[in-house]
């Protein structure tokens, strides 16, 4: 218990107290607190256990760089794992729990790992748990080293996406960002400014200044008011820019209701903005680095800037006896500021010698002991730091034995220098360089229209940053064509010239300190010795070290650890940090809700199904629906208590004895017109289409350019130079696109127009021996008599006064008409068929019955009976190929040696000679002499059903040299069962095809 609430100050509303719980215990805070600041104000020190060693951890930072304070908030469907306490705005009734402690924070059973830490170096688990396989151990190890738990319920919240364009996007609402936005906004440009925090002002919230003779608070409010009033400017707080992509696309996520109690949230929880920005200005500030010294991870050890933020913004003092350890001026500013707020500073250890500092007169060195040329080399304390050990360091940064102090304290604030937040700039493809003056990677140039301003550039003088920011804002607007007047830049007090001494790791080798407890990455429990081990094991690239040690991974992505880690690498590899380089920065900047990316594309909207024209009619007839290639289609129609399988069998039988109706509207319908239409179709199809006369239909096979069977369908000739191309239901859009690709890109000389009219016409298939009798009940101008309208012909006319196209084609082997009428009439035509059909016992049938009928006939179904290797010779098109001389898509490919080899798998039928149940699709055909694998597969079953019309199970298959082997008995390996089959010609029902021509 060390942090406490200060009596005054802070941007909190002391009139609005809030209660919340942490690990089941009740606490109170104020409106304006974050969960982290409220915990500190309540004196809570241990807020988590570390990832691997389960060491007690406290809050390190005050922003998205926080590695330790990882929370699971709320419970049930609303629970969210792995949020940073520093980014959670406190609301009344908030429930938070730590994520990696069992059974509790105070006593964590796995903290035994901490005692074993010298035995668990980088990659220990991978190296140790190898036999029999890593995956045997992985679940247990993952549980021990876990973060939060994902909810077991569907996400109850709504999300949405918004797309916007703007001239200038400003990321970051600190002083530089605000001024840049103001400069751009005044020109009339479309400006968007976003800030992660609920409050505007950035660093000015921790470090208020006098600006233009007024307070920085007033200055901020004036700018925000002005921006909010500007009609072309959008102002978004609680919004994070998580990713920068190509061509100025920036992803934002806006937290709309996360700051409200769960019960008072309504509407959209989060919103993704996809912004296409002509110019982007990144004002993302800088993050402070911790010190890497032994036992630098004890609760109470915090970034100096975080300590100041808690005290200043939230009136939450980080502790009662504070030691500041620094290598730059900021540590002094921070200590002085805290002391003014009433926080006791017990000492400062500044790694620099006093002569190397440029501390201005305003820093009073007499208020507390200041140890120059010294730094922290170890700490003590279990659930809270209790003392700091200081040693003098030599020029190389090595702690010198003997010259030491032990200082009692409950808090150590670390200022290890600053790293500009370059993540978004780097994601954009921007180049970084290591800057010796700033001792940090700073942004340089970017191919995209993106610049950095403010502390994100590695420049920390506010006065200079304001001038540059105003300029950047004006520049961006004028490049977008807007006129900018001159901008008054506010004057600010103070100068911030500073020096920084590189201190990537405190070298404790001369005093017997333990590197194994000097943490570089707090979230992933990576120590300086892990980084060194990785390098000893020859992982020398920064990317390899990251993956081997997990340095810089997980939810904070190394925001506090990356640069120190690169510094440690420098010392071992003996090459400068500039050459070590950084790992690649990738989106998202901070974990982003997956639901927000999904937006409204969840549930029924995930992949909306298309409805048939007569959907209502199908429902009334008892249809059971399923998804077939994006269409919601009847599987079958259930009658009484029958099962789905019984219904399918009944339907398949009824059609061969009477008449059935089937909605075939999804069949692709592409009209092809023009003087070169026939020539074009000849080039697209294996079959010759140019000889087709008006009113005739022809079955066609289409290949892709690799020679693989791609689609089949019936092509009809409406009149000269005007064809109606039928495609399978699933391929309609793809084939329409293919036609256009060939016409636009390859055969630009052909005079052809195509039009995909699939959804303009509904089709009802009237199928079975009584089909003609049923259709003749309708007032139709088409003469259906068998001598004038033969199999494989088509007619246009009017049906009940509505235009219709009728094709006499059959996928069942029965007399069959596909009647197409305009989509809007499909439903009423279906109803009329049901009522007129009652006298014929008309049977509505679904896809599965049609599949039985076509398998009985041995008709192939592209995609079931063919695969990505099937060429037309394999499915009986050899003779047609031999007749056709001209070129077509895929022709040359089916002349390749592989396509003409003799042992190809061919399309055949199988008769089950073992038993009465169908083979399973996918069952393998074994070579002669084999009854079980291992064996070379000779092919497999591609379609298989029980045939109600022949009273036996039947199958189709692709089998090596199949067509030479009719009559041969073969062994089938069917999911562990060995069964027998005879190879037969496909099509066991009415093999002569007499029923087609009645």
């Amino acid at each position, binding site marked *: 218990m060390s942090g406490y609430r200060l009596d005054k100050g802070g941007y909190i509303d002391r009139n609005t107290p809030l209660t919340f719980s942490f690990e089941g215990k009740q606490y109170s805070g104020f409106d304006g607190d974050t969960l982290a600041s409220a915990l500190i104000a309540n004196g809570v020190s241990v807020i988590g256990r570390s990832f691997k060693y389960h060491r007690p951890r406290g809050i390190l930072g005050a922003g998205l760089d926080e590695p330790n304070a990882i929370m699971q908030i709320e419970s049930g469907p609303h629970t969210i794992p792995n949020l940073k306490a520093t980014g959670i705005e406190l609301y009344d009734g908030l429930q938070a729990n730590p994520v990696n402690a069992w059974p509790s924070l105070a006593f964590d059973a796995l903290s035994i790992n901490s005692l074993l830490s010298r035995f668990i170096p980088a990659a220990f688990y991978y190296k140790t748990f190898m036999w029999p396989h890593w995956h045997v151990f992985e679940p247990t190890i993952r549980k021990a080293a876990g973060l939060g738990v994902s909810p077991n319920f569907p996400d109850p919240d709504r999300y949405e996406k918004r797309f916007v364009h703007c001239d200038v996007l400003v990321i970051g609402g600190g002083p530089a960002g605000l001024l840049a936005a103001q400069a751009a906004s005044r020109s009339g440009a479309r400006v968007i400014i976003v800030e992660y925090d609920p409050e505007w002002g950035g660093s000015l919230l921790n470090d208020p200044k006098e600006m233009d003779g007024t307070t920085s608070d007033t200055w901020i409010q004036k700018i925000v008011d002005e921006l909010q009033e500007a009609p072309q400017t959008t102002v978004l707080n609680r919004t994070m820019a998580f990713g920068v992509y190509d*061509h100025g696309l920036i992803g934002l996520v806006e937290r709309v209701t996360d700051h409200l109690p769960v019960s008072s949230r309504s509407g959209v929880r989060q919103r993704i903005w996809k912004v296409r920005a002509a110019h982007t200005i990144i004002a993302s500030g800088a993050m402070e680095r911790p010190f890497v010294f032994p036992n630098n991870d004890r609760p109470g050890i915090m970034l100096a800037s975080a300590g100041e933020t808690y005290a200043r913004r939230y009136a939450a003092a980080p502790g009662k006896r504070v030691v500041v350890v620094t290598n730059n001026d900021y540590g002094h500013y921070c200590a002085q500021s805290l002391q003014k707020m009433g926080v006791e500073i017990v000492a400062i250890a500044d790694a620099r010698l006093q002569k190397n500092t440029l501390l201005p007169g305003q820093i009073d060195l007499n208020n507390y002991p200041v140890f120059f040329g010294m730094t922290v080399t170890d700490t003590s304390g279990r659930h809270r730091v209790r003392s700091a050990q200081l040693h003098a360091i030599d020029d190389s940064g090595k702690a010198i034995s003997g010259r030491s102090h032990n200082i009692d304290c409950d808090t150590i604030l670390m200022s290890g220098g600053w790293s500009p937040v370059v993540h978004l700039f780097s994601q954009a*493809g921007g180049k970084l360089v290591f800057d010796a003056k700033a001792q940090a990677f700073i942004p340089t140039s970017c*191919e995209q229209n993106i610049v950095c301003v403010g502390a994100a550039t590695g420049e920390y003088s506010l006065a200079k940053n304001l001038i540059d920011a105003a300029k950047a804002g004006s520049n961006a607007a004028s490049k977008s064509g807007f006129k900018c007047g001159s901008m008054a830049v506010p004057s600010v007090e103070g100068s911030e010239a500073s020096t920084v001494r590189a201190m990537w790791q405190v070298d404790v080798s001369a005093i017997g300190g333990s590197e194994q407890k000097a943490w570089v990455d707090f979230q992933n429990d990576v120590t300086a010795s892990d980084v060194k081990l990785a390098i000893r094991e020859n992982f020398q690239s920064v990317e390899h070290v990251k993956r081997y040690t997990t340095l810089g991974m997980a939810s904070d992505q190394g925001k506090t650890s990356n640069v120190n880690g690169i510094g440690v690498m420098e010392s071992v590899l003996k090459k400068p940090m500039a050459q070590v380089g950084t790992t690649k920065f990738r989106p998202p900047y901070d974990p982003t809700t997956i639901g927000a990316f999904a937006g409204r594309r969840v549930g029924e909207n995930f992949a909306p199904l298309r409805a048939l024209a007569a959907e209502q009619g199908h429902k009334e007839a008892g249809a059971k629906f399923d998804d077939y290639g994006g269409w919601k289609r009847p599987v079958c129609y259930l009658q009484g208590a029958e099962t789905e399988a019984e219904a399918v069998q009944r339907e398949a039988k009824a059609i061969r004895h009477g008449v059935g109706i089937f909605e075939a509207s999804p069949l692709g319908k592409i009209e092809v017109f023009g003087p070169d239409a026939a020539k074009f179709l000849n080039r697209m199809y294996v079959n010759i289409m140019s000889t087709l006369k008006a009113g005739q239909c022809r079955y066609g096979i289409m290949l892709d350019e690799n020679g693989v069977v791609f689609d089949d369908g019936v092509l009809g000739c409406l009149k000269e130079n005007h064809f109606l191309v039928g495609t399978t239901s699933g391929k309609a859009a793809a084939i329409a696109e293919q036609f256009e*690709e060939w016409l636009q*890109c390859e055969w630009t000389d052909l005079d052809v127009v195509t039009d995909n009219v699939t959804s303009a016409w509904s089709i009802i298939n009237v199928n079975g021996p009584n089909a003609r009798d049923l259709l003749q009940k309708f007032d139709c101008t088409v003469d259906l008599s068998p001598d004038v309208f033969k199999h494989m012909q088509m007619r246009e006319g009017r049906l009940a006064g509505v235009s219709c196209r009728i094709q006499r084609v059959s996928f069942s082997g029965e007399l069959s008409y596909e009647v197409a009428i305009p989509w809007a009439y499909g439903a009423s035509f279906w109803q009329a068929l049901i009522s007129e059909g009652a006298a014929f016992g008309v049977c509505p049938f679904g896809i599965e019955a049609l599949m039985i009928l076509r398998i009985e006939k041995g008709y192939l179904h592209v995609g079931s009976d063919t695969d990505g290797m099937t060429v037309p010779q394999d499915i009986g098109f050899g003779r047609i190929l031999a007749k056709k001389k001209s070129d077509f898509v895929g*022709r040359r490919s089916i002349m390749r040696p592989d396509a003409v080899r003799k042992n190809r798998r061919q399309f055949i039928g199988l008769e089950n000679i073992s038993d009465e149940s169908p083979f399973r699709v996918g069952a393998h055909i074994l070579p002669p002499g084999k009854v079980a694998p291992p064996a070379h597969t000779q092919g497999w079953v591609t379609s298989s059903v029980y045939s109600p019309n022949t009273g036996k199970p039947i199958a189709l298959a692709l089998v090596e040299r199949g067509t030479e082997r009719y009559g041969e008995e073969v062994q089938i390996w069917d999911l562990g069962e060995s069964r027998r089959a005879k190879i037969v010609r496909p099509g066991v029902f009415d093999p002569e095809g007499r029923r087609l021509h009645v």
Partner: protein
Amino acid sequence: MLQINCPYCGPRSEVEFRCGGESHIKRPGPPEDVSDAEWSEYLFFRKNPKGIHFERWLHRFGCGRWFNIARDTVSHEVLHEYAIDMPAPTIIEKTK
């Protein structure tokens, strides 16, 4: 996500388009005169430059037209958009 300037519709997001890969590939023929090697070259072999790439795109959810672009595969900068039947423009690559 790229922003592509469709020559017929103007700038649109990549999600509206389909990339058809390398452009200006000549389809050899007639089939009987084409060697296996020549055909496999046409079918399978594609350039993979670090730099300027000429490729064809379809404005699939727009005008439905194919066109060519010259794109820098390093920076993703689109340097030219031109009609499908136009020859590839001459571009002097920026030295990087």
